């Protein structure tokens, strides 16, 4: 087993992979979850003892401020892990999204991630911590949700640069999950149909993600190859 209790911030921790990760880590570590739901909707979902801050990332500046204030309020002077997991997207026909869909997708997935990484760097630096960007296998391009793919490619590039810039101080990684059985597709307006049955369960994805966070490697793709070879079982713990 691993040792010390870690202080961890996870965005998008009230559903999907983020929530499964919170469930895995909450007993052993101190967790602050940031999400778009109001407190009254979010708190019943989260395990006991997990802190929560309402911070919709559609407004990156305001959300960054709210999360920084929540860390101060918690009395944390160091941060061991920042997991930028929140993501949104819209499935569209013909590759044409509305301006609002493009702006929301980029704000939540890319701009907020950049601003949070920048704002929380001093806390991570003090702990020699790890910054994890949760990307997507769609980062190479995907006609069904172009802005989503673009935002995840942006995270890939941001992680590559920051990993070099902060080498020896803060470990930076980008992790690209494959198709996962969460509500994301439904929220995005896309029905994967019977394909969904082969998607990776969110708790298995969270287990693999935890292992990759502990290993601090980058970039890492978490998809069927690792899952079918028992990745959820053999991935390490944080």
């Amino acid at each position, binding site marked *: 087993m691993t040792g010390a209790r870690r202080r961890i911030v996870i965005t998008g921790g009230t559903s999907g992979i983020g929530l499964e990760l919170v469930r895995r880590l909450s007993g052993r570590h101190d967790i602050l979850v940031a999400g778009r739901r109001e407190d009254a909707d979010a708190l019943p979902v989260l395990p006991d003892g997990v802190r929560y801050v309402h911070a919709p990332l559609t407004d990156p500046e305001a959300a960054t401020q709210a999360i920084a204030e929540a860390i101060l309020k918690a009395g944390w002077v160091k941060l061991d892990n920042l997991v930028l997991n929140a993501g949104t997207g819209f499935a569209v026909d013909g590759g044409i999204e509305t301006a609002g869909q493009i702006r929301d997708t980029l704000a939540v997935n890319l*701009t907020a991630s950049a601003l949070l990484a920048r704002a929380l760097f001093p806390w991570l630096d003090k702990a020699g911590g790890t910054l994890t960007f949760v990307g997507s296998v769609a980062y190479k391009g995907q006609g069904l949700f172009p802005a989503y793919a673009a935002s995840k490619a942006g995270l890939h*590039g941001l992680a590559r*640069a*920051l990993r070099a810039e902060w080498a020896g101080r803060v470990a930076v990684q980008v992790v690209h999950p494959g198709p996962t059985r969460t509500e994301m597709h439904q929220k995005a307006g896309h029905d994967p149909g019977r394909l969904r049955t082969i998607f990776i369960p969110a708790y298995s994805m969270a287990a693999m993600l935890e292992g990759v966070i502990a290993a601090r490697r980058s970039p890492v793709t978490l998809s069927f190859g690792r899952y079918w070879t028992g990745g959820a079982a053999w991935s390490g713990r944080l």
Partner: protein
Amino acid sequence: MEWTAVSAARKALVTGASAGLGRAFAERLAAGGHAVTGIDRDAAGADVPFDHLLCDLADPGAVDALIAELAARGPFDRVILNAGISATGRFETIPPEAHARLLAVNTEAPMVLTAGLAAAGALGRGGRLIFVSSLSHFTGYPGAASYGASKDALAAYARSIRKPFEKAFGVSVSVACPGPLRTDHAARHAPEGTDAKKRMPPDEAARRILADAERGRAMITPGSGAAMFALLGRLAPGPVTSAMKRIIYDKLDRSVF
């Protein structure tokens, strides 16, 4: 959407047309007989051979208004999303507003413009749509992290819409990843002491990019130097990023944004 009539004069649209590579694109297309609309935050001067509209692409309201204006001017046979700004320095020393502004200009604006023009039927059938990304797409870019991210995002957007746009509009979508160019923009952001003569003149880059786009190429790396760097970056992204760190990041003497 089907086009039954093609307007007599071929029309082109170039963002970031006031200077540098965008100016070279606009002048070259105008010389080739296109009626060119240029877009920029800055004026282009009185004697340019194209029509120039002022717009701050970091302002979402201005971009929305611009789309309405352009929809009335279209359809465009050549659309070049070239406008870009940079922010160089240690990531954490650059103000958050500068990072946000960069992502708005380099990534959000070209995507919103593209989708808006497509939805308005302002893309000419058989046309070309070119996104200007950067050679940094093939490596990490320490010292310009948000710039690198913005250009990676744009390249992925272009790849994403290539098939749907070909199918819906008969438009060929290309990504151009030029290396360092001999422009004021590059001079402002390059470390002290770098040799501008080694950079490609913008007109040569524009010529190569337009020629490759005519051939329908998805990925354009203008010049043999850029092509070689792209290959190296693909084969060994880690070592190439480390080299970028030594060449650029470790020599940064100032932040520019």
